[in-house]
C-alpha cells in the first residue's frame, strides 16, 4: 500500500517535471483541463491550449533573453555596464506587439463566449437549486423533481474504511440528461450562493438565491460525469458533488417513465397511515442525508453553532411547532426550510425519528397527512 503510494507519488512528480509533455500516460493524475464532452467544453479546451502555448512562447523569449543576460553580463566575467537607458522606439514596439497578440486572442474568445451564452432554442429545461449541502433538480416539462446528495459514507470520510473509487464524487440520485439534446439549466439557490460545475461539461454558473441564471449543455457522449460545488457555501461545501448521467434517447425515455410511476406511488403512499417502524426506518435515512450534517448523527449538534435535538424543546415539545420548524426553517439561523426539498412522507418520518431517537422517547407518531395539513 505504502509502496504503491510512493510509486504513484514519484510518477506524479515526474509528471510535474515533464509539464504537459505526455498527456496520455499521465491522464490518471489529471494534469490538464479535460477536453470534455460538450461543444462548450471543447471550445474552452482549445482556447486554453492556444493561450497556454502563446504564454509559453512569450516566456521562452523573455526568460531566454533574461537568462542569457544573467549568464553573460556578470561582473565576475568582466562585463562592463553599458550606458543606454531609454529608447522610445523600443517602448512603443513592445506596447504595440503585445496589444496585437491580445487582439488575436480576443477574437476567438469573443466568438466562443457568444455561443456559450446563447441558451435559446433548447430542447429541455431543468431547474437546478443549490441547498446547503445538496442539489435539487426539477424537470420543468416532465414534472419530475428530486434531491441529489452525497452518497459517500461517513466512515470513508473519517478514514475508518477504505475510500471508494468515486470518493466524494458520488450521489444518491444523479441528474439524468439525454445525449445530443440542448439542455438548458436554470440555476438558483435557496440559502447561500453555490456554483454548479462539471468539468467535462465545460461550464460553471453560480447558483444565487433570488436569481435564476441559465446555461446550456449538449452532451455528445453517453456516460457518467462528475463535478462539485465550486463556490464556498459553508461547512460542507466540499461534500456536495454533482453527478450527471447522459443516456441515449430510448434509455432516457424509460428513465422518465420510471420516475413518473415512482412519483405517483409516493403520492399514494402519502395518503395511508404509516407504522412506527416504517417511519423510524425512513426517518433515520432522511435524517442522515438532510439533518446530520449540522445536528450530528447523535443528535447532539455542535455547541455554539448548531443546537442539539437530543432532549431539545422543539423535538420533545408540541408536534405542530416541530413540523413548522422543519417545513419553514428558522429565519436568521442556518436552519433551512425543508418544505420544498422533502416530501410529506419524508418530513413525517424525520419528525417521528427525531421525537423518538436518542432517548427522546416521546412515543409520538407523525403521519404524512399531518404534514400535508400543516403546509
Amino acid at each position, binding site marked *: 500500500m505504502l509502496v504503491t503510494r510512493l510509486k504513484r507519488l514519484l510518477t506524479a512528480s515526474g509528471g510535474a517535471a515533464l509539464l504537459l509533455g505526455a498527456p496520455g500516460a499521465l491522464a490518471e493524475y489529471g494534469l490538464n483541463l479535460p477536453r470534455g464532452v460538450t461543444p462548450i467544453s471543447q471550445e474552452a479546451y482549445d482556447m486554453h491550449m492556444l*493561450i497556454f502555448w502563446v504564454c509559453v512562447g512569450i516566456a521562452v523569449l523573455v526568460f531566454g533573453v533574461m537568462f542569457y*543576460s*544573467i549568464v553573460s*553580463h556578470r561582473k565576475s566575467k568582466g*562585463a562592463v555596464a553599458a550606458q543606454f537607458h531609454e529608447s522610445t522606439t523600443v517602448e512603443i514596439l513592445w506596447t504595440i506587439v503585445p496589444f496585437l497578440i491580445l487582439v488575436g486572442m480576443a477574437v476567438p474568445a469573443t466568438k466562443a463566449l457568444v455561443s456559450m451564452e446563447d441558451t435559446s432554442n433548447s430542447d429541455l429545461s431543468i431547474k437546478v437549486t443549490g441547498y446547503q449541502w445538496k442539489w435539487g433538480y426539477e424537470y420543468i416539462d416532465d414534472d419530475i423533481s428530486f434531491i441529489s446528495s452525497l452518497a459517500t459514507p461517513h466512515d470513508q470520510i473519517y*478514514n475508518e474504511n477504505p475510500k471508494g473509487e468515486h470518493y466524494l464524487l458520488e450521489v444518491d440520485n444523479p441528474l439524468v440528461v439525454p445525449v445530443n439534446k440542448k439542455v438548458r439549466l436554470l440555476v438558483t439557490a435557496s440559502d447561500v450562493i453555490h456554483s454548479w460545475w462539471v*468539468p467535462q461539461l465545460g461550464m460553471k454558473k*453560480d447558483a444565487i438565491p433570488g436569481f435564476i441564471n441559465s446555461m446550456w449543455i449538449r452532451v455528445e457522449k453517453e456516460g457518467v460525469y462528475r463535478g462539485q460545488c465550486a*463556490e464556498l*457555501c459553508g461547512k460542507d461545501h466540499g461534500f456536495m458533488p454533482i453527478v450527471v448521467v447522459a443516456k441515449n434517447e430510448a434509455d432516457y425515455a424509460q428513465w422518465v417513465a420510471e420516475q413518473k410511476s415512482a412519483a405517483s406511488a409516493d403520492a399514494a403512499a402519502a395518503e395511508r397511515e404509516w407504522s412506527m417502524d416504517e417511519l423510524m426506518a425512513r426517518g433515520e435515512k432522511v435524517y442522515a442525508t438532510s439533518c446530520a450534517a449540522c445536528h450530528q448523527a447523535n443528535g447532539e449538534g455542535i455547541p455554539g453553532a448548531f443546537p442539539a435535538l437530543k432532549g431539545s424543546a422543539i423535538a420533545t415539545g408540541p408536534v405542530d411547532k416541530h413540523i413548522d420548524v422543519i417545513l419553514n426553517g428558522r429565519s436568521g439561523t442556518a436552519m433551512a426550510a425543508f418544505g420544498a426539498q422533502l416530501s410529506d412522507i419524508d418530513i413525517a418520518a424525520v419528525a417521528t425519528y427525531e421525537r423518538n431517537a436518542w432517548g427522546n422517547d416521546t412515543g409520538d407518531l407523525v403521519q404524512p397527512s399531518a404534514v400535508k395539513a400543516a403546509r
Partner: protein
Amino acid sequence: MSTETTHDDHHGPARGLSRWVFTTNHKDIGTLYLLFSLLMFIVGGAMAMVIRAELFQPGLQFVEPQFFNSMTTMHALIMIFGAVMPGFVGLANWLVPMMIGAPDMALPRMNNWSFWILPFAFTMLLSTLFMDGGAPAGGWTMYPPLVMQTGNAFPFLIFSVHLMGISSIMGAINIVVTIVNMRAPGMTLMKMPLFVWTWLITAYLLIAVMPVLAGSVTMLLTDRYFGTSFFDAAGGGDPVMFQHIFWFFGHPEVYIMILPAFGIVSQIIPTFARKRLFGYSSMVYATSSIAFLSFIVWAHHMFTVGMPLTGELFFMYATMMIAVPTGVKVFNWVSTMWKGSMTFETPMLFAVGFVVMFTIGGFSGLMLAITPVDFQYHDTYFVVAHFHYVLVTGAVFSLMAAAYYWMPKWTGNMYDEKLGKLHFWLSTIFVNVLFFPQHFLGLAGMPRRIPDYSTQFTEFNQISSIGGFAFGLTQLLFVYIVYKTIKGGEKATDRVWEGAEGLEWTLSSPPPYHSFTTAPEVK
C-alpha cells in the same frame, strides 16, 4: 518647520517602551510596521500549515470542515491586511522621507495612530477564534448570504476590517502629503525614485477604495442587525451587488499589494546591474495605467455570477489590457539587466526571482482573463496557484528583497550573505514545489476552499503540502537572519552597495534619527 539643527542631541529617541508607544519618528514607526508584518506573516503562515496538513491526504484527519474554512478565511485576512500591506507601509515609512530628502513624514502624530490601530484590529480578529460559533469561515471576501451565518464573530470581523481600513487610509494620506510637500529642492516628480512613485500611486488607490470596503461591510452590518436588506434577496436586496462593491475595492487592492513591489524591484535591479533603470518614464506611465485599469476590471472576479454578455465582454477586454503595461515593466527590467555588470547578492536574487515568478503569475492571470475558459478555471486551485504566484513570489519576495537590500542601511550591520542566499534558494525551490502543482490540481478539477478531496488529487496535494511545510520552515531562517543582523555583524558603509544610487545612501548607516535636517540639493 524649524531649521534648528544644532539641538539634534536632545531629539534622540526616548528610552524604553515609551519610545515605541509614543513615537512620531518615521523610522521607529517603520520598524514597528515591519516587525508587525513579520509577526502576522508567521501567524498567517501557521494557519496555512494547518490547511496544508489537512490537505495532505484525502479524508478528514486533523480539523473539522468548519474550522478548516475559518483557517482559509483568517489566513487570507491576516496575510493581506496584516502581513503584506503593513510590510509595504513600513517600507514607505522608512524610505520615503530618506529618498526624497525630508526629515520625517509630514503628519507624524497621525503616523503613530495609523500603526497603533493595527495591533488592536488584529487582536480583535484573532480573538474570534475563541468565540461561540468559531472564527469567520465564509471566506475573506465575506460574500453574503453565507457571511450572515457567522456566529458571534460577525461584528468583530466587521469592526476589525473597519479598523484596518482606517489605518490604511491614514497611512496613505500621510504618504501622499509627504511626497507632495516635503521633497528636497530639485527633486522634481520625474526625478523621484520609482519606489516613491509607485507608493504615491498606491496611496491614491488606497484612499479611493478603502472607504468602499468600509461601506460594503457596514451594509453587511446593518443587514444583520438593523433590518436593512441590501444583500438579502428575500427583502428585495441583491447578493450580487455585494460582490460588485467588494471587488470594486478588491481589484485595486490587488495592485495596492503589487505596485510597491514593482517599485522595490525597480530600485534593486539597477543597483546590482550597475546600470540605470531602462525606461524610467515609461515605468511611471505603465504604473499609472495599471492603477487606472484596476478600477475597470473588477467583475473578472465574478464571471460566473450571470452577467449579461456585453458585461462579460467588456471586463474580458479590459482585463486583457492589463497585460500591456505589465509587460512593459517586465521588458524594462530585462533591458536594465541586459549588458549590465551584474552581481547576485541576496536582494538581487530575490528581485530576479520576483521577475521570473511574478511573470508566471501574470501568464496564468492572462489565461484567467479569457472569459470562456475562466468558466473552467474559476474557483479552482488554478486560481489559488495564480494569486499565490503573484502574492507570495510577487509581493512577499519583493518584501524579502527590500529587507535584505535596506537592512544594512537601517541597522548599520551587514546581514549574513551566506544565510541570505540559502534563504533565497530554499524559498524559491519550495515555493514552486508548493504552488506549481496547484495549477495541475485546478485544471484537473479540484475546487478551492475544500477540506477534503477526491482520491485522484492525492499526489499533487501531497507534493504541495511537502513544499508548504518546507517553505514555512525556511521562513524561520529569515527571522533568525533579521535577528542576527539587528544584534550585530560586519559594519555597513554609507553606500552599502557599489551600484546604489539615491539620497538614502548619502546618509550614514544607520541614518540619523531625523533623516535630513537640512534639505539636500538634488541636481
